[in-house]
């Protein structure tokens, strides 16, 4: 028996997501059995299977995204920027000043 990974699309427009795994003697049986194991309640519009041995994982996943400080590139500084701008504009108005371009 081989192990097959089963993937699904909920509708034809949705991305492929992992639905689970099954055991089957070969690809044809995997295609037949995957639908009853993971789709018998109408969970998806598409069912895909692939041999687990045909899936390859990227080595050293702990270094994915880098190991040094890259926090400068995060977008956190832009949070609430509209409200900040409004507050500054009101403060300047109170002082009788404005920003010119």
């Amino acid at each position, binding site marked *: *028996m081989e192990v097959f990974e089963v993937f699904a699309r909920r509708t034809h427009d949705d991305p492929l997501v992992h639905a689970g795994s*099954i*055991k*089957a*003697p070969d690809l*044809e*049986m995997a295609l*037949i*059995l995957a*639908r*009853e*194991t993971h789709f*018998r309640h109408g969970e998806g519009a598409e069912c895909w299977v692939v041999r687990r041995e045909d899936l390859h994982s990227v080595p050293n996943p702990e270094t994915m995204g880098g190991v040094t400080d890259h926090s400068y590139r995060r977008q956190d500084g832009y949070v609430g920027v509209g409200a900040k701008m409004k507050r500054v504009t009101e403060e300047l108005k109170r002082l009788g000043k404005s920003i010119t371009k």
Partner: protein
Amino acid sequence: MNDPRLSLLLALADDELILGHRLGEWTGWVPYIEEDLALSSIAQDEIAHARMLYEIASTIDGRDPDALALGRSPVEYRNAVLCERPNRDFAYTVARHWLYDTADDVRLRALRSSSLKELRETAEIFLLEERYHLDHARAWFSRLADGPVEARRRFGDALTKAIGEAVALFEPLEDEAALLSEGTLPRANEDLLAEWLGVVGAARTEGPTGDLVPTSTGAMEETGVQASLAVPGIERRDGAWVHAGGFTGAGGRRGKHSDDFEPLWAEMTALYRSHPGARW
């Protein structure tokens, strides 16, 4: 049963219900979980098909679908004897499943031109699900028929046991003449049987040619599906498999069942009989 349409509708519905019940007995017992789910799911499909047919029958008969499915006495059931046989082993289950599904495919295709609108529409719906049942049955057929020697031998034995009774899926109905003249049944059962034997014969002659293997006594023995070709009721004539001899009129379509039916009926209807009118 005064209306001829009931003899057809109940034959179809009872086949699905009783075979569905038998397949359901595998739940929890199949050697591995994926096939357990597949057989259980197919069992539910068959029972759902039975329900749709009982609903059509109900509009003619007057009794509600539950009463038709579970409230009749054993002699009132019109399923073929093949459907009520115990599951025996997996080889027999697959052999029966394949014979039944190929036969069901032939009759459902014919029923798409029935004069009874509800039956015509129902046949179209069933064919969508039966396509999967057929894929499943064919996949197992080839794995057992082309499998190791023990698989071939057991599958050959199972086919031999099942095929004679599968022929009786096409036993003429009680009101067949009336059904044909009003078009509810577009083609005679003997005609459907001839078509089905063509399908079965083609599949079986395409299979392995029956290897000769040594037995425990040293003699050579033929195995595989070819060894199961010779059964009473089927003959090879001019290169085609044909039905030989007639029906004795003593089969399931007349309410004549085997000893295997009553225990099945007793279990299937126990709850319905113990709590009349109960709903869930």
